[in-house]
């Protein structure tokens, strides 16, 4: 009985916390309804498509392939990213490069974003700093899967 009473008091305390949240937030919502500016807002929600949050500098977003000064991709087709990718979603084919310093360029470079898990291992593995995930682009949802297969053109784009 005593235990039940203590429990009952805690229950009331709990509901007072939620009531306080309700009252305080409702007060700020009401002020906003009457167009009164306050420093605090009634909710911490960010209304996403209209308001956007800043992306952190180390955020992993859509991949891009970097280019040399002459416009060719920096990638030397060492296959390290292909090997390390846990989702096995990178596909690279090599072509010969006339420049003996470079030797190989990718003729196809495909990332299947529908399978990519955005782990960033490909970026870490690349010895040439040829692939980065710093475009800051996070909205690339599509209605069909084949639109999510990004090729060389789209990646260097």
């Amino acid at each position: 009985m005593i235990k039940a009473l203590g429990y009952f008091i805690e229950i009331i305390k709990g509901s007072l916390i939620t009531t306080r949240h309700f009252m305080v937030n409702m007060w700020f919502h009401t002020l906003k309804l009457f167009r009164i500016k306050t420093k605090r807002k009634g909710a911490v929600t960010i209304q996403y498509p209209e308001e956007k949050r800043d992306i952190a500098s180390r955020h992993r977003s859509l991949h891009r392939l970097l280019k040399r000064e002459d416009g060719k991709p920096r990638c030397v087709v060492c296959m390290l990213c292909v090997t390390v990718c846990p989702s096995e979603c990178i596909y690279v084919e090599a072509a010969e490069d006339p420049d003996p310093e470079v030797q190989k360029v990718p003729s196809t470079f495909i990332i299947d974003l529908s399978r990519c898990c955005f782990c960033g291992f490909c970026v870490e593995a690349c010895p040439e700093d040829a692939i980065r995930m710093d475009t800051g682009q996070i909205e690339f949802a599509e209605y069909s899967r084949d639109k999510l297969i990004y090729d060389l053109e789209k990646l260097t784009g």
Partner: protein
Amino acid sequence: MSDWIIILIKIICALVWFLVIALYLTWAERKESAVIQDRIGANRANIWKFRVIGLFQPFADAIKMIFKEDFTPSFSRKFLHNLAPFVSFFFVAITISAIPFGDVLRIGGREIKLQIVDFNVSLLFVLAMLSLGIYGIILAGWSSNNRYTLIGGMRGAAQLISYEVALGLSLIGLILVYPSLKLSAIVHFQGELLWGWLPKWGVFLQPLGLLIFFFAALAETKRVPFDLPEGENEIVGFFTEYSGLKWGLFMFTDFMEVLIVSCLLTTLFFGGWQVPWLYADGFHFPWGGEWLLPHGIVVAFQVLAFNLKVFFFCWLQILIRWTYPRFRYDQVMDLGWKLLVPLSLVNIAGTAILLSLIG
């Protein structure tokens, strides 16, 4: 003839009120939970870009539910499976017929009671109908022919039947104080004054009864602190095998139960449509002032008071639903049988002794 028309109009008005408020309770629940948790809540449903703080959300939900596939599993007992949601819906919906929304309204020499039917035993009627609603749950659990739904249905039956006892017993004290089973008479009694200033509301005369009734009624609505029949993360619940509109009906019945519990709390313990010190001809304050009002305004005040009280209790129930975690099954049974039932017996004995002492 005109009597029938009046009854019909009353039924339509009461049902529309009931269903619309229950519909908007779904919206209120989302919004209130959002405000409690520092969120905004559903606000995107729009008609031609008019959002109006998400007021169209219930309609969007309804449209979604209507167009979802209504899937009946092949292993279920078809007839009972289809019947169950309607059973639980019907028995909750019918209770509204006994709730008094206000006193009599006089139009053109005719007295219209603002209550669909004024039974002699309307209190028993409401309780009986609410307990018949259990059949919907048991039927749903049983006819789905799935272990989890069966466990849910059995849990629902056990919980509701145990709390039915406390619910009934908690009201006996009340019936002793207001010697009537007629809801309209109970509300009339609550208009009288104690010591010349305190309205004789149930909350002042039967505080313990109110507490027990409130807990038991919360358990009857089978919402979160007592949601064992559903128990999302344990057994999914008695309507696991339902989809589309029939599932929506179960969901909607929950909200209707919240509303009917609020109506009952208001009617039995908070004076129903009574406004303190408002009589048929206006306010008579205990400190001597008067404020006479025409009949129409008095009735409007009464209906408004009833609505406000009901909304407050809906708010309170939603608050409770979003504050507390679920009880364990044995805790629910302990609370019901070891605390609420003995307490309600103590309440009955105490009330009886007090009444006999006062005479």
